[in-house]
């Protein structure tokens, strides 16, 4: 893969890696006595591990010019492998956590593996590691095909992909070492946050450059969503992570805002991490892969517009539904609740647009597990957003907040929507990328689908029960007007549901592992594609003709 880079790209890569190694060395040496030194060493090791192979190929000849006639898919391939790897790792941790909530002694007894440290490893691992890699890998894939151009260069996609993975690595190793800002979904410390800002700017510039060179007059809907994902995540990330480090050689920082202002900033971020990371980005994915796989046109271009702008505008108002009845002034809660209800309309419009697109292709849904993944994802997307808007009603939230119902809602979205659409997209792209006829084993895809679906259903039902029982127990009064249950009563009552959830999670994890196996088998053993399936060459005579006629 390195030899595919041009000589100047290789020099650029080496320069970046050397600078990183030096920065890492500096932190490792000067930050001794502080956990930041460990991260300095980690950065250095990672940078050197990439620098040596690059050095080995520094003077190799230039790659052949005909590469420019095809899409640049190497980063997408690596990104998809990483997506599966993070899925396996982070879902394993998730299920481990689930069992710990059943039996708290099922841990190593060392600090790194305690519940509170592993929980953000799970959330970061799934959202950023699994979800983020899936988004980056598919966005490169989708933007080239929907713009009908090759990526503008070969270095910046690698920088984005690998730089992002370095961020994830710093994040999860940090939590295990005790490095955390403790802000939910924004736990990485200041230096990792700064690094992500750099990576993200490069990502956005790469996107703009690709769009600027596009051969299609219009920007496809999928790209609106990917752009919104990149842009808004940048805004959120920067504002929510403002902090003052103890020193430049300390891993610890103190966040700029405090108390109630910090709470709203955090949930403005937190909710929109859901909206623009777990929703907008994946809607982008869905808008490309679902119609391609179904072989059907999008049901309604106009509905796409309504949903897109509705989501982009309204999501940003609703973070306060995470703070109902708290010390956050009530006026903000009112706004959060009102917008959450309106938000249901564009959300359902997206889900409906996806499902109606399948009209005329339901026989394919029946036969093709990959498409079925996407169909189920759209269903769960609709279900989760409905549930979300419902839970955003103050009186409902009074019951659901702080309980496992929230966690059930999270995983209806995370497993049912995010993970399903991602697996669907990966199964659709992998044969195309590796130029295979199809996935090595369609049985394993089918198996994965059923494990994922049953796991999700068990998980979500268990926690709906758990959460509602918990919420009710906390507020049940006896006839005489006294609270009936102690907190501990509610802890004890959760056991059967926690067991069920852990089993559901295990099924889901097993499915993901089947996916990993299938990926490996496909890359190694699947029969090569006989014809260029959907490997649409850059200069495609058919679509060129269409375009010319159109202009």
């Amino acid at each position, binding site marked *: 893969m390195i030899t595919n880079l041009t000589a100047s790209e290789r020099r650029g890569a080496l320069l970046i890696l050397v600078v990183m190694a030096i920065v890492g060395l500096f932190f490792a040496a000067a930050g001794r006595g502080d956990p930041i030194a460990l991260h300095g060493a980690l950065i250095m090791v990672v940078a050197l591990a990439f620098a040596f192979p690059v050095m080995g190929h520094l003077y190799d000849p230039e790659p052949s010019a005909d590469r420019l006639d095809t899409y640049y898919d190497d980063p997408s391939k690596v990104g998809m492998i990483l997506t599966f790897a993070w899925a396996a790792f982070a879902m394993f941790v998730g299920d481990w956590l689930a069992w710990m*909530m059943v039996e708290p002694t099922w841990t190593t007894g060392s600090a790194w593996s*305690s519940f509170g440290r592993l929980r953000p490893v799970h959330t970061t691992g799934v959202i950023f590691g699994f979800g983020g890699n899936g988004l980056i890998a598919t966005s490169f894939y989708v933007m080239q095909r929907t713009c009908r151009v090759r990526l503008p260069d070969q270095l910046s996609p690698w920088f984005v992909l690998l730089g992002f993975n370095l961020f994830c690595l710093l994040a999860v190793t940090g939590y295990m070492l005790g490095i*955390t800002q403790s802000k939910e979904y924004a736990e990485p410390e200041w230096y990792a946050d700064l690094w992500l800002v750099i990576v993200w700017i490069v990502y956005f510039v790469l996107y703009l450059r690709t769009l600027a060179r596009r051969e299609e007059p*219009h*920007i496809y809907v999928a790209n609106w969503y990917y752009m919104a994902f990149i842009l808004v995540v940048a805004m959120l990330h920067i504002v929510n992570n403002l902090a003052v480090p103890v020193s430049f050689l300390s891993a610890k920082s103190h966040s*700029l805002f405090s*108390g109630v202002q910090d709470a709203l900033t955090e949930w403005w971020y937190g909710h929109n991490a859901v909206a623009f990371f777990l929703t907008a980005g994946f809607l982008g994915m869905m808008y490309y892969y679902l119609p391609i796989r179904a072989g059907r046109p999008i049901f309604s271009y106009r509905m796409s517009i309504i949903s897109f702008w509705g989501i982009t*505008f309204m999501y*940003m108002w609703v973070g306060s539904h995470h703070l109902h*009845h708290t010390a956050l002034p009530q006026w903000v809660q009112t706004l959060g609740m009102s917008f959450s209800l309106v938000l249901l309309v564009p959300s359902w419009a997206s889900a409906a647009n996806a499902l109606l697109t399948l009209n005329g292709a339901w026989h394919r849904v029946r036969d093709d597990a990959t498409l079925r993944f996407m169909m189920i994802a759209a269903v769960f997307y609709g279900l989760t957003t409905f549930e979300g808007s419902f839970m955003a009603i103050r009186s409902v939230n009074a019951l659901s907040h702080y309980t496992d119902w929230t966690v059930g809602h999270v995983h209806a979205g995370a497993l049912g929507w995010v993970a399903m659409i991602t697996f669907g997209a990966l199964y659709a792209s992998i044969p195309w990328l590796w130029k295979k006829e199809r996935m090595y084993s369609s049985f394993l895809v089918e198996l994965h689908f059923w494990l994922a679906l049953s796991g999700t259903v068990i998980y979500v039902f268990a926690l709906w029960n758990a959460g509602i029982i918990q919420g009710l127990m906390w507020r049940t009064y006896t006839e005489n007007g006294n609270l009936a249950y102690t907190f501990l009563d509610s802890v004890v009552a959760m056991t059967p549901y926690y067991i069920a959830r852990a089993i559901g999670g295990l099924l889901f994890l097993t499915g993901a592992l089947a996916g990993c196996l299938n990926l490996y088998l496909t890359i190694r053993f699947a029969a090569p594609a006989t014809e260029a399936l959907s490997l649409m060459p850059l200069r495609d005579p058919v679509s060129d003709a269409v375009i010319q006629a159109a202009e």
Partner: protein
Amino acid sequence: MFKLHYRLERRAIGMTLAIICAASVGGFVEIAPLFTIDQTVEAAPDMRVYTPLELAGRNIYMREGCYACHSQMIRTLRDEVERYGHYSLAVESKYDHPMLWGSKRTGPDIAPLGGKYSDEWHVRHLLNPREVVRVSIMPSYAWLMDNDLRIDDLSGQLAAQHAVGVPYTPDMIRHAADDAYGQANPDSNRVAGVRARYDDNTNIRAFDGIADRLTEMDALVAYLQILGRLTDASNLDPVGKDLE
């Protein structure tokens, strides 16, 4: 409208600007006024800051992820007030950078925990929760007792807190390490300094039961024992007292 969009979607920069505009409104309208509307944070003249030891304990609370299971935010609901005590006020987390309100109650709310249990109970509970609460599913934190508390960076911690707006004096910042030591060792000669610099009611005890060793357990228990006690603001207001 669709015609307009048909033109907009041909311009990457146009889309970029439109997305930024659409996405900026909500946050701006909701967050900015929290800094300008006076009623947002109640007045509490008696509000005190965390001592260095308590701040170090708070850092450990974050490091161990206790906030993943414990909230520190009692909501304005009858059952919450009857179960835990007066609903939380914004001022109570005024010096919390960041706030630790939490979003999940696998364990109970601990906003008003300070003084509820003895130090010894906390130590035993943190070492092995099931030794004191048979059915607990809380993890054990045995290493807190083994680890000496890091105090060399405490001045820096206070200085950073000062930089984000917590009123630590230069004197407090300079003596942070001494004060941490003194607060956990009632027999030491540094106690007077703690008393002089901080509130008279500051807890000065061997929190982990060992006076001459400053462990992470000292810090965490000191923090737990101050929860809900930085200000009396909620006690002045009679809600929930004797109403149960």
